[in-house]
């Protein structure tokens, strides 16, 4: 049995996951907790939020996120890949700035629009 805290929503349910019985999850408040509990012990993933450089915009950095959760182990590779991205304002919200980042299958997309300075 493994104790986990569900991070799917701010409620923070205390989960128990039984590794020996097909990762059966108890203590969840909603079905998302079941999926999280199992995934966390088999193939944990996270959505990454960060920034990329942006020229000529209101601010010199534009916030971005992965379009879906990526394997935890890929986080350093994703961050490294972001260093190579440089946008030029104007930028629109949801624009894909890097496809299939670090081979994860997820895209990097902007999370705000950036007007020109």
């Amino acid at each position, binding site marked *: 049995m493994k104790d*986990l*805290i*569900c*991070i*799917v*929503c*701010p409620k*923070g349910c205390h989960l128990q996951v039984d590794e020996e019985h097909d990762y059966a999850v108890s203590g969840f408040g909603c079905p998302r907790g079941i999926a999280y509990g199992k995934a966390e012990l088999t193939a944990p993933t*996270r*959505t*990454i*939020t*960060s*920034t990329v*450089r942006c020229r000529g915009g*209101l*601010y*010199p*950095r534009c*916030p971005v*996120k992965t379009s879906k959760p990526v394997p*935890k182990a890929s*986080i350093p590779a994703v*961050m490294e890949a972001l260093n190579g991205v440089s946008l030029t304002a104007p930028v629109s*919200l949801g624009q894909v700035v890097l496809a299939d980042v670090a081979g994860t299958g997820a895209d990097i997309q902007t*999370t*705000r*629009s950036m007007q020109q300075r």
Partner: protein
Amino acid sequence: MYDCIVIGGGPAGLAAASAAWEQGLRKILLAERDVELGGILNQCIHNGFGLHYFKEELTGPEYAARFAEKLRETGVEVRMDTMVLDLKGAPGRREVHMVSRDKGYCIEEARSVILAMGCRERTRGAISIPGTRPAGVFTAGAAQRYVNMEGWLPGERIVILGSGDIGLIMARRLTLEGAKVLACVELMPYSGGLTRNIVQCLQDYNIPLYLSHTVTEIRGKDRVEQVVVSQVDGRRNPIPGTEMVFDCDTLLLSVGLIPENELSRQAGAEMDPRTNGPRVAENMESISLSGVFACGNVAHVHDLVDFVTEESLRAGAAAAHYVQSQGWESADGEGPVLPVQPGPGVSYVLPQAVRPAEMDKTCTLSFRVSQVFGPCKIILKAGEAQIASFPRERLAPGEMERIPLPKVLLERAQAQSVSVSVEEVSAQ
């Protein structure tokens, strides 16, 4: 003369202004001191916003953009880069003093005003950390702005004091950007932030959390060179002999937020020393200033923007109702005003008063507990009589709790006051 002036274009002001528009007001002015709408959400680039309100997970800027977009579809007049400096006048004719580069110094009149100025961070002074006063001591929010918007890392080796959500989020953020976060230090025996942030911001990156510890000395002449961390006893006094020294160049403080209410105080709003915000009634209207409403972090500090939105939508709608029913004409105090008080185990409750005559079917009471509770029940009383109870598995001061207050139960009880308390439930 405006129907409504909204002070602040963060999540609270945006929601309040759109609600006032939706409820039929047409002359609305929103004054925002920054160069864009969205307030602090613009620097909160992490996700986790909107799960309650939009039923999906958004980042701060995305959440802000949805409301800014919604506001653009209305006829609300928005003045950016505009600082409100004074609030004067009388019920039905409030005067809002504001200044901007474009329009200069203006005094605008309004039937109603919505205070949505948000909050600020507590600083080193508020907690009197001994030692030297070098550069490199930042509030977590200031560091967040430097990293996420300006693209600058404040330091390489970082200690974070306080485990509020902004501190936890910054621990992860700084780590991802290549800094070494050595420790997160929390005075209390429990974290001030959401449990999921402990997991995904600290545990994911093996950042140690020291509960019941505090920073007892800052060292370094020009820039932070070391901080000393000590364990504290049950009365939060440092225990000699427990000192740990961290070699670091930066200390981030995430030691609490204070509603920004200088304007409210100047205007003469009666304040609640527990929330540091104006005392408000069930419709978020100031108890002492007719037609002045407060919502979001100016009223009390929230953990979740979703609840800010919900509260502000109510405030905006209430302001519209006030204007449409010419609330300034009716004498104050039609019908009883019942104070709502925090009982044992509760540090504050909002609203601070309810007027049954003005209430909808139910009113949401928001509160925080004063300590961590395991299995427990929330007890709602009218006068001395219990009118409802709500079981909970766990309550913590870091997580705001909300319960409904049904009008019908209140009327039936015919009491003079309402209180909320929390009791531990003994294990079977």
